[in-house]
């Protein structure tokens, strides 16, 4: 299906579905820019414990001491002096949708969040700008000892010590500049705790909505899964489009106990003024499994490479990702894995689509330590470019420190052939439908890894991206 030059073009997209804006009506908002005063103000507003205030200030120092990374896509459009790091929405967090302020509730209803909760989720968290506005978990799941709450409550609740001893331990503020930024101004996010032997049969979901123009969202998701347990966590994100830069620098830290499995699915659909500089990391103990499923559609610029540390013997990771870059977007995505245990394995499978001058880069790093004998790693990436202006680069890095390993890398880059389009058109499909079908088929292996509603959403997003749908 690849080969022939592609000549026709697809219309620009419409993302009305995600693009509605609420009037900015926060309970509290800090001045733009990042100073000690702002950080102290956030800390005070959030009623941080003393150690957290110190932690933030220390992270701020680290932030100021680190340079902006130069190895990735340009981020000079992002000026921290213009970013508002904290916007508290109206109302208190609630476990009842009725209590959520009307306009915020409408937002989440348009995004289908309460509907999905009723249908297919064990628990839902919804964050609006800097704070979680809704958090609820099904009684039967709670009865299993599962904790799913906003992270602020967790930091002061029964498990405060556990949360403190894990918070930013996997991704310390010293890791990189935006991790330091996160440490200084983080707000919102979820805490999940799954006790030993508990299998959470239906997924939990957190949804992050950034409404305020020029603002940043810095939610922190901390997941601790004890031994012999299972969890599927879904994360969704979106924002309306503004003319000024918004920033997302969240952190996800996942601790996976022995023989446990965690699946972490994300559909990210930020608006195209967003700088998405997100960090995700999992630490996997013996026999444990981390499965990342990741769909990146939005943002102006993304740096996103979930990292898995296969610490225990026989631990495994699977990463399945898709990235769709349109006009003006540069999405630099991929995965990192460190094999430390023996007999560990990693599978990275990605697809990328670029169109209208969009750039989609695949970046991976596979590191196998001296001790990690009999480890296996397979990296496969496929890119589809829909026109001559678009770009796709593949940057795979391997660092192998022992000889008893089995590693493979495969990369394919192609275009939609005119012949395939003609074939489908000869069966009655319009040119746009033909292309959308081909692109949808290209994405299908990823779509089938997603929860059904998200697979549908992904297909809708592809259709949105492929055809200028009517608002």
């Amino acid at each position, binding site marked *: 299906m690849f080969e022939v030059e592609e000549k026709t073009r697809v219309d620009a997209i419409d993302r009305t579905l995600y693009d509605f804006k609420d009037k900015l009506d926060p309970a509290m908002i800090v001045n733009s820019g990042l100073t000690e005063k702002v950080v102290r103000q956030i800390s005070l507003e959030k009623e941080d414990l003393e150690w957290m205030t110190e932690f933030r200030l220390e992270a701020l120092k680290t932030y100021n001491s680190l340079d902006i990374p130069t190895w990735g896509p340009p981020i000079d459009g992002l000026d921290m002096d213009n970013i508002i790091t904290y916007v508290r929405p109206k109302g208190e967090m609630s476990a009842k949708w009725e209590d959520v302020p009307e306009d915020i509730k409408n937002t989440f209803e348009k995004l289908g969040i309460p509907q999905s909760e009723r249908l297919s989720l064990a628990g839902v968290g919804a964050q609006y700008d800097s704070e979680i506005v809704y958090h609820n978990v099904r009684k039967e799941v709670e009865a299993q000892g599962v904790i799913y709450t906003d992270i602020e409550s967790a930091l002061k609740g029964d498990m405060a010590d556990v949360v403190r001893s894990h918070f930013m331990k996997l991704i310390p503020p010293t890791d990189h500049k935006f991790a330091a930024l996160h440490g200084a101004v983080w707000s919102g996010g979820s805490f999940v705790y799954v006790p030993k032997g508990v299998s959470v049969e239906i997924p939990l979901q957190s949804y992050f909505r950034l409404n305020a123009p020029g603002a940043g969202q810095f939610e922190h998701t901390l997941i601790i899964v004890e031994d012999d347990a299972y969890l599927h966590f879904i994360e969704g994100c979106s924002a309306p489009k503004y003319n000024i830069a918004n920033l997302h620098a969240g952190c996800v830290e996942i601790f996976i106990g022995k023989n446990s499995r965690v699946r972490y699915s994300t559909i990210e659909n930020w608006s195209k003024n967003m700088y998405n500089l997100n960090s995700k990391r999992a630490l996997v103990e013996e026999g444990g499994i981390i499965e990342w499923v990741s769909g990146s559609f939005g943002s102006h610029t993304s740096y996103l490479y979930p990292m898995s540390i296969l610490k225990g013997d026989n631990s495994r990771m699977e990463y399945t990702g898709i990235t769709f870059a349109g006009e003006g977007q540069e999405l630099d995505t991929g995965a990192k894995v460190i094999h430390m245990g023996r007999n560990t394995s990693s599978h990275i499978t990605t697809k990328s689509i670029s169109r209208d001058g969009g750039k989609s880069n695949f970046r991976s790093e596979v590191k196998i330590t001296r001790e990690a004998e009999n480890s296996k790693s397979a990296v496969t990436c496929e890119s589809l470019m829909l026109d001559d202006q678009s770009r796709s680069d593949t940057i795979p890095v391997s660092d192998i420190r022992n000889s008893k390993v089995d590693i493979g890398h495969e990369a394919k880059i192609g275009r939609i052939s005119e012949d*395939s389009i003609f074939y489908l058109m*000869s*069966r*009655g499909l319009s040119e746009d439908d033909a292309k959308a*079908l081909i692109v949808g*088929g290209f994405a299908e292996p990823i779509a089938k890894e997603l929860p059904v509603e998200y697979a549908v959403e992904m297909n809708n997003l592809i259709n949105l991206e492929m055809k200028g749908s009517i608002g």
Partner: protein
Amino acid sequence: MALLEIKNLKVAVEDKTILNGVDLKIEPGEIHVLMGQNGVGKSTLVSAVMGDPSYEVEGGQILFDGEDITDASPDERARKGIFMSFQNPLEIPGVTMENFLRTARGSIRGTKEKIVAFRRELEEKMDALGMDHAYADRYLNVGFSGGEKKKAEILQLLMLQPKLAFLDETDSGLDVDAVKTVTEGIKHFHNKENSLVIITHNASILDGLDVDKVHVIGKCKILRTGDRSLIDRINEFGYASVTEEV
């Protein structure tokens, strides 16, 4: 009124003239056979009628149901009721045959196909062609053998029910039994309202079909038109025997 009328058609590929003045008329219910040596432009004619953008129509007219479709896009032509089976059907990864066919028929008929009823109908037609139902759930033509691809094309014909179908060497590369199955499929499809144009080098695909006209293409045009007996002469004495006396 003729179902298809081609008037003085001139077609070029990459600036090379392949057809230079083809006239052809097909009435509803007719079966035509198109013959000719390799490379004379049989497939070019079919592709031009279907609207393949890699073929440039330099002159002439194509009328379908009395309407000029010379400049229509391939999907418009498909929606009006034209179909061609491909010699080399394309593989579309990630799109199941069922999903593809349901989408295609929905586009052609402008209706939303009912999932269960459509599946039932698809399975019936697959049975008629001796195709395993599992093919419905496989990605379109991906990993199909040559014979399976050809059968899948006939399955598409049966599901899409066009008014006019071009079958371009659908029998090539098929074993005897598979050719019979394809012929059965064609019989299943054909009725008084719809027409077929079959391109073949081999008479066995035509067994039991009521062939109305046979055209021999050569030297950029239709050199000779006759009845079924032309096929036997060609098979016995070669193309020269029917074209040189013209």
